[in-house]
């Protein structure tokens, strides 16, 4: 972790600085250019002019994980792809967030019983922050997921001593 991350007491001024940083982070989420299957079409619609994700500051997909904070996993993740998803997540800059988009990514979807090659939910590979169900989800549903993620990002501790252990899953990396 960083030099001063979660090292200061959880008092008013520290919390104020944390909430200012959280406001900055939630207002400038950079998603990664990443799409797997049909959900990706809905995701592209969310980026485009009609739904315009950019009004929440998250509308410019970056072409490399090094510049992204958010990976939206849109579409069926099979066993071969799961390894790649894991590596892409590993190569993202921290703090990083994951939105699981669609029924397949949330838990297998239509392949949950007979899909021999489908990973039954991407949470088995990477820690998921927001689940967006649907087959595929409406653009409004993904936007709601982004709004939920914004809330979550703005509530995180940066300097203050950590009280929740939500992102401890990151320790499993490698």
């Amino acid at each position, binding site marked *: *972790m*960083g*030099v*001063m*991350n979660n090292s200061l007491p959880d008092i008013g001024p520290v919390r104020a600085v944390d909430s200012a*940083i959280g406001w900055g982070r939630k207002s400038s989420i950079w998603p990664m250019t990443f799409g797997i299957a049909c959900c990706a079409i809905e995701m592209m619609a969310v980026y485009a002019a009609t739904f315009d994700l950019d009004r929440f500051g998250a509308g410019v997909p970056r072409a*490399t*994980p*090094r510049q992204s904070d958010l990976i939206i996993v849109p579409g069926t993740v099979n066993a071969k792809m799961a*390894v*790649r*998803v894991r*590596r*892409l997540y*590993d*190569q993202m800059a*921290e*703090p990083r967030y994951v939105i699981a988009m669609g029924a397949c990514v949330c838990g297998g979807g239509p392949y949950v019983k007979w899909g021999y090659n489908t990973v039954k939910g991407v949470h088995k590979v990477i820690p998921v922050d927001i689940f967006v169900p649907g087959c595929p989800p409406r653009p409004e549903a993904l936007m709601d997921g982004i709004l939920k993620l914004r809330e979550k990002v703005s509530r995180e501790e*940066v300097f203050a001593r950590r009280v929740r252990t939500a992102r401890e899953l*990151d320790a499993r*990396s*490698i």
Partner: protein
Amino acid sequence: MHRSHTRGPPCTALGRVLTVAVESGLAPERDVFLSYHAVLVFLITGVAMVCTPLVLGVLFRPRNPYPAKNMPYECAEDPIGPAQIRFDMRFYTAALIFIVFDVEIAFMFPWATVFQSFPDRGLALFEGLAFILILFLGLVYVWAKGDVDWNKGFQHKRRVQG
């Protein structure tokens, strides 16, 4: 430099400190020295503007390197070979020739689409053809130089030997 920097008292805090330094004999002659104090302010501000974000970043950012994170980004595949390889210079010429035609098509399509609605179609046709002619001259030049030929260098070598 502005008059006030050489005659009147300098307006910045640093300028006032330097004035005291000059008057107490610590610094060299007044006019030359003080007239350049803005450069010193500029240098300090420049260094501070670079260093401050770097220091803030060290304090803010999580630092958690591990092998999978540090490996080169190759769309999640294992990288093959080093990144510092030598590219053939002929790709550069080919890319330049491509741009000639790329720009041509990029401008020709909108021109052809709205061609019917031009008030003066004769002029529009002339302008379009003039544009194509200019790019065609570029193609003629490239052709004459022999850059369209992929094996240019080898043929030249053969000619020298023969």
